[in-house]
């Protein structure tokens, strides 16, 4: 038994060691329309030139309730039904960065750590002594420091960059699972209902069985 306990303990230690590879900042997501719209705005300005969101269409933004004028400005002369396709072609991007920028529609769901990962990554840039930039979270990244997080480590500027990153992540979280709000809402009703039903069934069972003795 003692050895077993030791094994279990050892296992726990190795598990935490592995999970702690990179320490992620925690982001307090906002899931109201305004922050998501702000996030979309920032993303269309800062990320959309290189990154596609192939599962998101301009019509989805409208249906979600975003400002019509803004959506019209973003889409230009593309049809409402078209996806948010990057302005830069993939070939150009590969030419420039050596690697195609990944699609962002599912980015939050596709990384261990979810929103925290993306947030920490966007803010993870730092200035190396030789003048180039590095990233704590994803050292091999080819993406430049878009929000200039490496250059704004203090005061108001820092807070601003954090807010921007948070908005972008709020938007990307919505985009990765657009029915999440509906799902949670429905979930409360379903579980509330099931608790009522199960309570009733409990009493039915009790009554039926009480006849036995």
């Amino acid at each position, binding site marked *: 038994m003692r050895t*077993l306990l030791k*094994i*279990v303990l*050892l*296992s726990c230690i*190795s*598990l935490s060691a*592995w999970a702690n590879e990179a320490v992620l900042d925690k982001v307090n997501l906002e899931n109201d329309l305004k922050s998501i719209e702000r996030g979309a705005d920032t993303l269309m300005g800062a990320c959309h030139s290189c990154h596609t969101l192939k*599962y998101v269409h301009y019509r*989805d933004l409208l249906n979600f309730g975003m400002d019509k004028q803004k959506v019209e400005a973003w889409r230009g002369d593309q049809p409402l039904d078209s996806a948010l396709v990057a302005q830069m072609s993939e070939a150009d991007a590969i030419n420039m960065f050596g690697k195609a920028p990944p699609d962002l*529609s*599912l980015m939050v*769901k*596709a*990384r*261990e750590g*979810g929103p925290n990962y993306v947030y920490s990554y966007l803010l993870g840039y730092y200035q190396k002594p030789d003048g180039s930039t590095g990233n704590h979270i994803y050292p091999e990244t080819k993406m430049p420091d878009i929000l200039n997080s490496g250059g704004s480590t203090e005061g108001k500027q820092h807070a601003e960059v954090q807010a921007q990153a948070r908005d972008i992540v709020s938007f990307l979280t919505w985009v*990765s*699972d*657009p*029915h999440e709000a509906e*799902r*949670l809402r*429905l*979930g409360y009703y*379903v*579980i509330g209902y*099931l*608790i009522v*039903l*199960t309570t009733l*069934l*409990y009493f*039915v*069972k009790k009554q*039926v*069985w009480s006849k*036995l003795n």
Partner: protein
Amino acid sequence: MPGRIVEWIDQRFPLTSFVKHELTGYPTPRNLSYWWNFGFLAGFVLVLQVATGIFLAMHYKADVALSFDSIQHIMRDVNYGWLLRYMHAVGASAFFFVIFVHMARTLYYGSYRAPRELMWWTGQGLLLLLMATAFMGYLLPWGQMSFWGATVITNLFRATPFFGDQIVIWLRGDFTVGDATLTRFFSLHYLMPFIIFGAVLIHLVALHTVKSSNPSGINLADKDNIPFHPYFTTKDLYGLGIFLIIYSIFVFFIPNSLIEPANNIPANPMQTPNHIVPEWYFLPFYAILRSVPNLVGGVLAMGLSVIIFAFMPFLDRSRIPGGARYRPIYKLRFYLFVLDMFILGYVGYVPPTTQTILIGQIATVIYFASYFIIPFISVKEDAWLFKRGLPPEVMALIEKEALDKEERKQKRLRRQGDIT
């Protein structure tokens, strides 16, 4: 009117008597605990998987160029598509959870013993079918985990002597997991649940022949049997309510906890994710595979680890009914086995390091050892327990069983005597 229709049918088909005899009036031991709910729950989850699966298949496209997109189409555009998909994905896990509990119940109470060996073996067949179904379903979303999971598992067949490589290519219909693999997996994933239905039917016919076991292990007198309806219909439905609450918490609040992040990246045959893991329900077996530092040996060990359940009726030589209930050593062995499963599951989940590999190897040895010692402990334990004394009704039952056995032997001998 309904009465007349039933009457009309009854003259042509034994509907009422069938329902009365096999369903509502089926005599059931009154002392069944809630651990006996899980068979019914497994049947319910099967229906749930088929229902959600059929509706998903209306929108799903089995084509390497379209699969991943069609899942996103389901998740985003189809009305309640997200609900159907999460129900199906969570349902697969729920299925294994329910089946594992069902099996643990059987092991604990010794329900695999005579005369229920066939139930245990059909159950084993159901487990294998379920594993195959879930494994093939997991390829369908065509994410990174889907692809690499299928690649690794089909490669297990490389361990086949002489034809290994050919068999792997035959299974895939391609040199790697590709379009041909995806379409056949979809076809089979659609088919297998219906085979499972058939196997469940056999499982149930066997059950109605040998009747349910019960926690006391003693065959209850007729006065202790009660009709299935209304007693166990209400008990099962109450249990179903509890199950649905837990299931819904997963479906509505944490569905993504059961979907690996990497499966949200489309399959890429040119790049393996850093950390590939199977679904949680395969982890203990996967850990056994990884513990053997040899391709063929690992595959054999893994195969044996699943098949070994089937030997339980032979391994357990005890004459005491009721499984762990009257047998402290067997009970200890049971809990150690469950603990060992958890350790293996954990080892299967974490990336291999020298430390975890060592833990895995120890756990693998314990896993098999825990089976091989059963014949010895069951005999030794019996002797000890007989000496210490057992409850009179248990002793009576053992004596009756011994007498029955003797009688059968005599009969057989007499018959042989007649013939010669």
